[in-house]
């Protein structure tokens, strides 16, 4: 493989930053959640790249676990969004401000 590992790490950093900006800028709860998924995937890419750099499979196993945790997190998160929507009839995070002082 001729591509330096740092290229993948930088790509992963860019995707993670785009995800961060998405979480901070967007108002729709679903799109915010998708941006979180993007961040998780960016970190997975970095883990797999480091696994390649160090020549062992620990990074890939960790990426595998992070995928499983992401799947569980998506299930619970979407259930919460559906519940909020049922109660408030909105998926906009600004409208769910009951706990705001």
């Amino acid at each position: 493989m001729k591509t330096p590992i740092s290229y993948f790490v930088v790509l992963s950093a860019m995707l993670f930053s785009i995800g961060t900006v998405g979480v901070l800028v967007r108002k729709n709860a679903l799109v915010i959640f998708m941006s979180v998924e993007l961040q998780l995937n960016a970190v997975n890419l970095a883990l797999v790249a480091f696994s390649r750099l160090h020549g062992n499979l620990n990074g890939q196993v960790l990426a595998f676990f992070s995928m499983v945790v992401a799947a569980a997190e998506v299930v619970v998160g979407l259930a919460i969004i559906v519940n909020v929507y049922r109660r408030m009839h909105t998926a906009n995070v600004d409208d769910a401000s009951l706990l705001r002082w």
Partner: protein
Amino acid sequence: MAPDQIVFWVFAPVSVGSAVAMLFQRNAIHAALFLIVNFFTLAVFYLVLGAPFLFAVQIIVYAGAIMVLFLFVIMLLGVDREESLVERLRGQRPLAIVLGLGMAVEIFVTARASLGLARGPADFDQTVNVGGNAQALSRVLFRAYFLPFEVTSILLIVAAIAAMVLAQRRERTTAEAAHEAEAA
């Protein structure tokens, strides 16, 4: 140019472009579709990095299961709602973009300084992926990471039960029904 470099330079712009496009979509469905494109490009990178098992898992679990779940919930909540552009916090958007760029630059400098142009072992497939990636990965997973693997199964069961409990439509108790009738 080696094949993996060609693959990288073809798919990296697609990956970043689809992520940025996801950010700018007003419609949640379009955002989800761009995210699926992004997940596919990440799967290709896993293949280049010598992780064909994660390539398959990425497509099956992320591009398949998770995104179908997302699209299902978008359908459930209605797709035609436009996002309001009212800012509750003044200056949040520019600040978010500046901070995001700052983080990207920070990680870029760190990666540049610490990794340089290191490439890792060239014979990764012969020395690490012995007998195939799935076999090698399962050897690591079921020996060194056996306990975390079992704990993960508990996590999945808890998540499934939590989703069922959360998604359940709460039945109104008779007291609540009486209260509502009184109010009406």
